């Protein structure tokens, strides 16, 4: 990286729920950890506890990792009402948890103390922030991140915790300006700003866009809305009997979704591909990419498809989606949950090879604004700005 010498070298800590839990945040933190290491920063990736479902992060990491707990900290909710306050077992558990938290936070404090001036703590998930709050971060810049859209957080229990634990961090980062604006106005987070995620990879060979295949990649989970994709496909398939929908991914809803597929009479045109380790290959096999999620943050899948020059049709489920896809230019968006509209958009792309080529090429070009070099530059700028 050419920028290496222009920036002061810092100690950068990533603090997440786990070092290696399955999911986008893990992939993101290790990608950024590598990039920062390449910049000459001293990186340390910290997890609070072991994950429920691990992800392979490799063994040749160029930076140290630490997991605080040996076993998962006790799970206990807040005391509610008189009954809750009188429950002795719960009280003990809660006390044990609090004591344990202080003990682990002390480990964090020790790590932070060793850092040089100008060090940065990046907390990727709000649960991890509960420990960072207890640690001594004097002299360090603390950045708290929310890796999903405002609306999706709003509907979950994380909303209250983000507002509470990120209230006094030096910068709270959302993924898009629109999300940050919502955090500011509706969430009352005046320290909010935003930074997008980087593109994970740039495939050498784009898709030829010749196969009559529509690709979907995502866990078979309610959030990814595969049920709505099937409803959509039921409207499109009769118009294009020679096309196939390939659904990559596995998950808890598999059985239910396959039953729905059969009930809709789509078994002839839908292929269940299972989980794939070769995303670029899967993308190269298709001519159109479809995403039917109920909620997203800054979806990597869309960026990957665009990088592979595959035009996307997607539900506009989050600011991150219309930030990545310029509707009508390098992809097509439909109102969230409006399967009829998504079907019309798919139909447009499937019927018109020229449109696919135009949008696909433009997509590959446009998505370059999220290359790693560009995103790293923005992080360095942020670090410098927060020093002022």
């Amino acid at each position, binding site marked *: 990286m050419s920028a290496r010498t222009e920036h002061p070298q810092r100690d950068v800590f990533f603090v997440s729920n786990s070092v290696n839990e399955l999911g986008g945040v893990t992939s993101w933190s290790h990608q950024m950890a590598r990039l920062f290491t390449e910049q000459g920063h001293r990186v340390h990736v910290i997890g609070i506890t072991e994950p429920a479902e691990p992800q392979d992060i490799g063994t040749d990491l160029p930076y140290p990792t630490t997991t605080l707990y040996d076993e998962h900290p006790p799970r206990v909710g807040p005391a509610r009402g008189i009954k809750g306050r009188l429950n002795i077992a719960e009280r003990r558990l809660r006390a044990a948890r609090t004591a344990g938290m202080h003990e682990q936070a002390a480990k964090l404090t020790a790590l932070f103390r060793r850092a040089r001036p100008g060090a940065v703590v990046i907390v990727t998930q709000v649960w991890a922030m509960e420990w960072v709050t207890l640690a001594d971060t004097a002299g360090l810049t603390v950045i708290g991140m929310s890796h999903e859209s405002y609306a999706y957080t709003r509907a979950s229990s994380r909303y209250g915790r983000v507002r509470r634990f990120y209230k006094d961090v030096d910068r709270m980062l959302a993924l898009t300006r*629109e999300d940050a604006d919502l955090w500011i106005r509706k969430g009352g987070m*005046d*320290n909010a700003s935003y930074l997008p995620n980087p593109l994970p990879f740039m495939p050498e060979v784009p898709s030829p866009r010749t196969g009559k295949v529509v690709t979907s990649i995502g866990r078979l989970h*309610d959030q990814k809305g595969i049920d709505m994709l099937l409803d959509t496909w039921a409207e499109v398939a009769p118009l294009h009997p020679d096309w196939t929908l390939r659904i990559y991914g596995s998950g808890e809803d598999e059985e239910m979704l396959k039953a729905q597929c059969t009930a809709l009479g789509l078994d002839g045109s839908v292929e269940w591909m299972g989980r794939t380790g070769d995303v670029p290959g899967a993308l190269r096999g298709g001519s159109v990419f479809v995403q039917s999620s109920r909620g997203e943050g800054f979806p990597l899948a869309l960026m990957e498809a665009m990088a592979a020059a595959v035009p996307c049709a997607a539900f506009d489920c989050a600011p991150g989606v219309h930030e990545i896809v310029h509707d009508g230019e390098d992809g097509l968006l439909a109102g969230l949950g*409006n399967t009829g509209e998504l079907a019309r958009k798919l139909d447009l792309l499937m019927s018109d090879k020229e449109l696919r080529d135009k949008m696909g090429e433009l997509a590959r070009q446009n998505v370059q604004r999220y290359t790693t070099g560009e995103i790293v530059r923005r992080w360095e700028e942020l670090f410098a700005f927060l020093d*002022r």
Partner: protein
Amino acid sequence: MGLIADRERDPDVSVVVIVYNDEARLRAAVRSVLDQTLRGVEVVIVDDCSTDGSYEVAQWLAAENPGRVRAFQLPENSGGCGEPRNVGIGHTRGRYVMFLDSDDVLERNACRNLLEAAERDGSDIVSGLCVRLHLDRRNQKRVEWYPWLYARTQVLDSVTELPDLFVWDTLSTNKMYRRGFLMENQLRFLKGMFYEDLMFIAEAYLAAERITLIPNQVYFWHVYEKAAAKSISNRRHEMTNFVHRMEIHRRIDALLAERGLTELKLAKDVKFLKHDLVLHLRDLPFRDDSYRQEFAGIARDYLTSLAPEAYDEVQSIQAVCAYLLRENDWDNLLPAVDTLTNRDKISAPLVERDGHVYWCAEHLDDPFGRHVLDVTDLGHHTRTVDRMFLRNTLTGYAERGGTAHGGTTRGGTGRGGTGRGGTGRGGTGRGGTVRLAGRIVNPLGVIPEGARLTGHLEFRARRRSLQSFRFPVAVLRHEGDSVSWEAEADLAGKLRPLGIVDEVWDVRLKLDVDGVRTTTRLTASEHDLAEGLLPVRPRLTRMVADHVEPVVSQRGHLAFRLVARDRVEDKERVRELVVRGIHGRPGKLAKSGFQRAKKLRKKLTSGETKIRVYGEVFSRLPVKKGLVVFESQLGKQYSDSPKAIYEEMLRQGLRFEAVWSYAGSPEGFPAEATLVRRWSLPYLRALAQAEFWIDNQSYPLKLTKRPETTYIQTWHGSALKRMGFDEAAWKLKSKARQQEQQRVLNRFDRFLIRSEHDVRTLAKAFRLQERTLLRVGYPRNDALVHAREREAAAGRRARGPLAAELGIPEDKQVLLYAPTFRKHGGRNQRFELPFDVERFAAELGDRYVLLVRAHYLNHVVLPPSVRGTVIDVSARHDVNPLMELSDALITDYSSVMFDYALLDRPLLFFAYDYEEYAHEGRGTYFDLLERAPGPVVRTEDELYGALDSLAEDDAKYQPERERFVAEFGEYDKGTAARSIVEQFFSHWSRS
């Protein structure tokens, strides 16, 4: 390393803090700057030659924070905010400049957020949200300053892109300016004038080449309402104030004219009418004549410079006031100002001319006046007297034995009386009785001559009223445009306040017009009240107060306030003790007890409790054989298929117990049935014990149906729009919510179907089991099928009694216009008709009568000019008789089309917003444009064209209607109600 900001280099931001005699708060203001998350900030304090210790505090702060705080003082007091800020600008060193007043504070991240945006966008000005905090209110009310401007980040290359910013956010303090920008454009504040911000910010906005708005809170404006020295904005009643305001407006207008910015000028004119003028107008009733004349002289001159188009952009009452002021018509202006203050009040007699309603009879020969004074749209002519809030002016006020007061001094009792008043005043009415007289306006003769009039005055405490007192109105005289009245109130004898908790007593006059009641308030702002005290005997204690005095509320209404007269000092002391008690521990205990009781009551009457009572109490009672609960459109109507089934059951003489649910008023519901209000306990009990539920939409979602109860869901129309699980909103619900929804739908034991289209759409969308589907057609449509059969048999169309009731002449054809529900109704769900009804009346009124039926959740206002030609039939419960009466239907996408087609009469589709409806909304099941069994028109002109050739086109569309009926109404054979009764109730005994 360069990591730690170089303290020696120039700061990023300089904050100019101005202070005048505010030593106590200066420190907090400066602290809020020094505590910024951005470290590179400096403070420049400029003291406007204070007479207290402000400058010493400033110097001390400077000494304590060397390099970060500097203090300066003007040689003599400048009397405003402008000059100190100008001096401050001169001393700044930062790349960016902000202004802060000594009694306010910055948000902690303000400088960092503003700076980030300024550097990112290269902006000359960055502006953030200002929040007014009312610190002396117990709940610390916060009011956001024009929050809609700050809903999201916006970058403007010119202020002309966002005129609202230019006209509304005229503060200089919630902003960061590039210092170079201030210098290059020589931007400075005016000296020695109020509203210096207005001019400064207007010039700055116009000069800026880039402006960024950020949604962050940046500035907390502390408001102290009770402060002794009122700030400028609180003293707006002062004439100089107004003179300054007008002068600034003139100068800004000149700036705009110089640059040819007519659009900004118009936006500014609109704001002037909506805001600036209103602020001053509201004070007029409380001012004397010489003030009014002087005010009018200054204002009139400026008003003539406003663009006439501006009048169309404001509320009609605002335009009316501006116009009347311009015309110097005080007789009409003062009542109009009453409406300006009391929004829903009708304060003028109004006149009807040529089918339009005007504010007053004067000025109608002036075309512009006629235009502005036309208030038809307010719909006053469609209102009954009980729905009107009439102006009631006090014309006489006297204490018995004393003389009527017409004095010239008004003293401290005006304007809600912030002073405690009452001390040492004479003129106590010995008898304690007041004589009141007044005049109630009678708009459009809504109170008819010869009407039976009775009334009484009601005294009620403003807060926590536990009791009210009434005094009869002895005299009521109809005088054409108004009703005059006289009453006597023996306050000493009859008014018994508790004391302490009920300090202020409001007075209302309740007038009964032929038994219909309307409530008025007594407008006393223009009348001089006696400044006397009347003895009263508070029930709790006379330690605090023993008299009442008349006061005028901020809205201009008469009220009475409890005061002390005898041994005032003692009472002050007692009062202080009492107040201390209220705010202290005993008070808190009492209050929290009160609040807990309130919470408990709320909980007991909440929906949740009712559902529990339904589930745990009512559902344990035995199901009553023969108990049927009917509901239509969530209880809003007595109509549709539930009504048709009910009437068929009556016709067959079945013995059963009928319960009808109603929401709102029971009027129009069958008197012989048991009527229960929706969500009331009797309603829930009836549902729990019913053998049958018959409804066309849904009973409360959370009520579980007992297995012994049979739910016949008749539904209310075939679907064009996607429904149920075919709608995006339903698909997006989580699995758990979807299952919950499905449980609600699974309550249906029977679901009526009128064609296989329903099976493909509704039944699928609700995921209903095949066995629940009842393919019998809609009972409500039986009548339509019969009407068609009758017509075919007789060879002619017979009009029922409804035609006479609506006053429709024999020789006119009847059109029914029934559009579907539209959300963008604004306030009160007002539905703007998509065509000009007056044009309809003019062009087609000789041949047609148009019945307008808005969706039951919308409403329309028709001008009097179309009376007899265009009739609003929205309030009628049942649309069926209207369909039978009409000779053709105009609709857009309402499901009424599916039913009307059964009559085999012309249908016309006025689909002016089809694309928006079909695509941007939730989508449709089929393309209406392809399958419509009648002409589809897109514009008003096309509509008239189609109406012209309605008869000729009819034959052409006959086969299409046939097909339409076959597809969407194949089971509607006119026997639906009968077959339902046969299937479910035939075994019941008959009388």
